[in-house]
């Protein structure tokens, strides 16, 4: 008897009169003590599956068919009252946004205590002891004191720890973790995943892990189910899945991951977009995007087949067939990578952006947040510099300051030999013609009230109407959109398509350097591959330079020529991508690289301790010393000067300074 078993679960949502088949016949089982990962891209129904298990669907949702068994008894036939005995007591759940999932006006003590009151019935003293014990267990320092705090007094990672403490308070048999680390930085993600693993070892609960991240699956799961368009298309043990993914969709997911080993080639990508779940399907749901689809796929929905190692819903495995014939290695379009150092296009010297903190009776400036604090780097023509760092490190502010969208406090930005800081509106307009920007959120970066044509025309002043027309068509073709897109509005496009439009808009003024501010972090991995390929091709064709701001290391590995690592407003390490990524010198870079969950499985790692300190009040000396495993006395007093490690490799760490005989590892 499985601990938790879903049997042909179907959950529908009603949306403006349309029926959305969010979960459409899903069956799987979770065994005692294992971690079962449900993997899928956004909108595939994985979260609705987890909410169905808890019977906590949104008001518009409804379970129409199937059943859910916990220890053999049906959850769906329980009355609501009986279900309340299951929630929290037998099945706990944590959500993606710890910041929104805790009640903002209740103390942490009360929120955890509520679970104990409901399920544990302890006396006052035991209750308080248990709360402190739980907080201690999830790694919250000073648990007695912190129990009295409100959620807003915790950082994102700490909030997620509180959520975990709450979910585990009544020692449930199953913990559902619904994208538990998606909203967190990569070093914090590593901490949370480690915590979940150790708690599982200690408490022996089963984890149903919902995620879109292959790396997280690889590190955590014992078994995997891949979900696509409301269905499970493949289930396998972790090892079998990562050794040989069977379903064409699973294989595509692996192929579209960027990474170091794919640097010279185009990424494999999945054509088209995920079909809307409001339509009816006949045949395999993946057929229209599958390279191996044949007539049967479009007509008959495949049943489960054994591929030898995993169960898969694909006609290619019927009757013991071997599956998709060896994937034709997608033509690795050779991308010209001129290794000759080009001319310096943009150079930034000692750039600082400080935001004032106002205090007191007359709101006098009492201090500054040094969002960007004396940053220097340069980008050569046709090259990509990746600016890496966690949220709050100032990388987006830096991007805006380079474009003069924010006035820098001091320092210089030199573009193509001309200083562009402190220019008036008119001269600035001329000077920055060659500089453009692409933003992170494709939904916020296009004005919903303008047609694509109008959006693109915005920058094309001084161009004749005829030229404009031709240019717009040319650009749309270049980014892979059809001609009629120009007369449509942004809401008619998907996230990936919008990002293409944003790229086309930036290209409209023939820029030579584009600041890409996390352009793919809001996109699914298959769509991310499309955008990365596009950017790479544009660079090859037009000799564009990119300042690529990101927190995603595998994207950096895939397309950066140079890397700069930013920590609390300063660049702590920079150099050629090969050097920085293969031989990271700064302990922070090491921790950052090690924290990235890898599909190759878990490796022992140098983890960054604690949270990112507040940029308003960075620690004295080296900002990283509190989290650094190699911290020395001088780290606490003095910010290290840059040290050259190689031709272009530079690091700011006392381990490498002239004054100490430090050694990196």
């Amino acid at each position, binding site marked *: 008897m499985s601990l938790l078993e879903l049997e042909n679960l179907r959950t529908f949502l*009603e*949306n*403006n009169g349309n029926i959305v088949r969010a979960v459409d016949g899903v069956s799987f089982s979770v065994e005692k003590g294992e971690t079962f990962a449900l993997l899928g891209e956004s909108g595939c129904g994985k979260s609705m599956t987890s909410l169905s298990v808890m*019977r906590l*669907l*949104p*008001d*518009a*949702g*409804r*379970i*129409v*068919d199937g059943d859910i068994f916990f220890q053999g008894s*049906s959850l*769906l*036939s329980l*009355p*609501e009252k009986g279900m309340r005995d299951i929630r929290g007591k037998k099945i706990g759940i944590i959500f993606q946004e710890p910041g929104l999932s805790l009640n903002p006006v209740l103390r942490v003590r009360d929120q955890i205590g509520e679970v104990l009151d409901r399920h544990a019935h302890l006396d006052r003293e035991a209750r308080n002891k248990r709360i402190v014990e739980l907080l201690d267990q999830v790694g919250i320092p000073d648990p007695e004191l912190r129990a009295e705090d409100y959620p807003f007094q915790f950082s994102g990672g700490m909030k997620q720890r509180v959520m975990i403490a709450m979910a585990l308070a009544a020692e449930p048999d199953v913990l559902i973790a619904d994208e538990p680390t998606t909203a967190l930085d990569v070093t914090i993600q590593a901490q949370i995943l480690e915590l979940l693993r150790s708690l599982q070892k200690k408490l022996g609960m089963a984890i149903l892990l919902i995620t879109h991240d292959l790396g997280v699956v690889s590190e955590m799961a014992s078994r995997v189910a891949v979900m696509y368009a409301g269905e499970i298309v493949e289930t396998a043990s972790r090892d079998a899945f990562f050794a040989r993914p069977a379903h064409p969709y699973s294989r595509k997911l692996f192929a579209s991951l960027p990474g170091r080993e794919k640097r010279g080639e185009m990424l494999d990508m999945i054509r088209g977009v995920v079909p809307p779940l409001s339509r009816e399907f006949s045949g395999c749901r993946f057929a229209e995007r599958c390279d191996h689809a044949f007539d049967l796929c479009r007509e008959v929905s495949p049943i489960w087949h054994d591929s030898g190692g995993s169960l898969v819903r694909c006609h290619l495995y019927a009757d013991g067939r071997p599956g998709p014939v060896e994937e034709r290695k997608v033509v690795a379009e050779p991308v010209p990578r001129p290794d000759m150092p080009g001319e310096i296009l943009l150079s930034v010297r000692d750039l600082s952006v400080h935001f004032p903190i106002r205090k007191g009776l007359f709101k006098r400036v009492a201090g500054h947040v040094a969002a960007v604090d004396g940053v220097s780097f340069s980008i050569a023509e046709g090259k990509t510099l990746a600016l890496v760092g966690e949220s709050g490190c100032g990388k987006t502010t830096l991007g*805006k300051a380079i*474009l003069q*969208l924010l006035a820098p406090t001091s320092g210089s930005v030199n573009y193509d030999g001309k200083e562009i800081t402190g220019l008036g*509106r008119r001269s*600035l*307009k001329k000077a*920055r013609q060659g*500089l*453009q*920007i692409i*933003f*992170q*959120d494709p939904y*916020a*970066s*296009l*004005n*919903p*009230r*303008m047609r694509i044509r109008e*959006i693109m025309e*915005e*920058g094309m002043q001084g161009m004749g109407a005829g030229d404009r027309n031709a240019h717009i068509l040319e650009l749309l073709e270049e980014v892979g959109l059809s001609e009629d897109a120009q007369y449509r*509005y942004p*809401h008619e496009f998907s996230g990936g398509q919008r990002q293409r439009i*944003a790229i086309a*808009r*930036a290209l409209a*003024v023939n820029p030579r350097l584009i600041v890409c501010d996390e352009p793919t972090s809001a996109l699914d991995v298959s769509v991310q591959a499309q955008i990365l390929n596009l950017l790479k091709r544009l660079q090859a064709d037009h000799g564009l330079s990119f300042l690529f701001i990101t927190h995603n290391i595998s994207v950096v590995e895939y397309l950066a020529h140079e890397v700069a690592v930013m920590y609390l407003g300063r660049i702590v390490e920079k150099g050629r991508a090969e050097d920085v990524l293969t031989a990271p010198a700064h302990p922070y870079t090491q921790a950052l690289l090690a924290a990235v969950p890898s599909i190759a499985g878990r490796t022992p790692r140098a983890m960054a301790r604690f949270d990112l300190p507040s940029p308003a009040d960075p620690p004295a000396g080296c900002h990283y010393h509190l989290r650094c495993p190699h911290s020395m006395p001088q780290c606490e007093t003095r910010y290290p000067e840059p040290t050259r490690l190689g031709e272009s490799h530079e690091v700011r760490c006392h381990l490498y300074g002239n004054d100490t005989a430090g050694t990196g590892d």
Partner: protein
Amino acid sequence: MVVILWTDGLVFLLSGLILAFAVYASRRPHLSLPWRRVGQSRSGMISAVILICFVSIGLLDSFHFRPQIAIDKGKPIYSVEVLSAFDFLVETMRNHTERTYSSPFSAYAFSRETVASDGVQSRIYPRLRYGGADLADPGRERIPDILKRSLVAALEGIGVWALLAAILVFRHSGGKSFPDAASSIFRGETEIPWNAMLGTLLAIFLIAFPAFALSSHYHVFGTDKVGQDVFYLALKSIRTGLVIGTLTTLVMLPFAIFLGIMAGYLGGWLDDVIQYLYTMLNSIPAVLLIAASVLMMQVYIDAHPALFETMAERADLRLLFLCMILGMTSWTGLCRLLRGEALKLREMEYILAAQAFGVSRLRIVTRHILPNVMHIVLISVVMEFSSLVLAEAVLSYVGVGVDPSMISFGTMINSARLEMAREPMVWWPLAAAFVFMFAMVLSANLFADAVRDAFDPRTRVASRRIPPVKDEA
């Protein structure tokens, strides 16, 4: 002689703007899409039908002229009385004034009078001059007469309704046979709830046709103290209410939009000044501000009687001024909302992108910010409408509302409030004001809800709760 009063001009301007927007929006899906959602709302469309009836009366009542009474040496002489196209339509109601109170549908006066006939003085309830005047024996003939006239008018109403319905079905048949199209409309299979709208229209016709037919022979809502037909007064009040509800916002919108966006987008000292301005205006109790302004206006009007040719022009100017004053006190709320929104939009990435292109501030405001705050403006305009209609009544009661000579719900209530204390009670003027005002405000509220639901992204969450199949099994 055609007279265009100030408020007439503005009403026409507003109608023109709405029409122009409708044409403009119909070709732009992102503008017409939310309106289509309004069109799908049952309660929204039912109230829209009622509102359209009110608005048609109000518009008819806005075509003013002065009838010619004589020609003197080739030069026409015009009456000092300003009439409207609507007055012309309901001329009988307007002219049928009795001496004093009479109850609805009555043929006799409300109170006894001493009448001398044949030298004998007696206190009787005298017959009315117009109400039921053509009946020989009202006691016996009145009810059958009323029923007969209502029935005939109701049938006429059904006839007109059927004609309209047929036209609608015909226009929507689109390839289908006429019966098929009719059944799809009446079974509610169309996107727009035509069946509910037609039902509402039928109900309105079944009330309105008999009411108008009877109004030339009876006083449907009785008469007031000076013998005026209350039904006529209630109908005339509609225009006043509509003018207050719409022109006030029209007057305040430019201020609110301009200042709000400036404060939010440009910030700095301008923001401080604008915030100071609206905090100051907000801090004065609204009634006092309105009262002071209206009194000031009244003093001005009284001091310059020569400026106005007719009483209507004088009353109209006061109405317009009241709209302005109400606008002055109510723009602050919208201004603050818009400031907040502009502050948020200023950080939006598409605005940063526009800045990266070097787009000028003016263009950013007109092309990026303004279109993206218009839904807030629209929602607040429609939400404000009903509260303004209600405010008029209160202000007129206090004595700082419309000109006492102007017919409005407020003046109706004001002059009728003491009548509740009479024995026997005179209830019909209040009842008429209540019924008409309630119908207007309720439909405005329901329509406003539909508009808000369609335009406000936050409220557009499915609120329907579907129980799980096996729940509580």
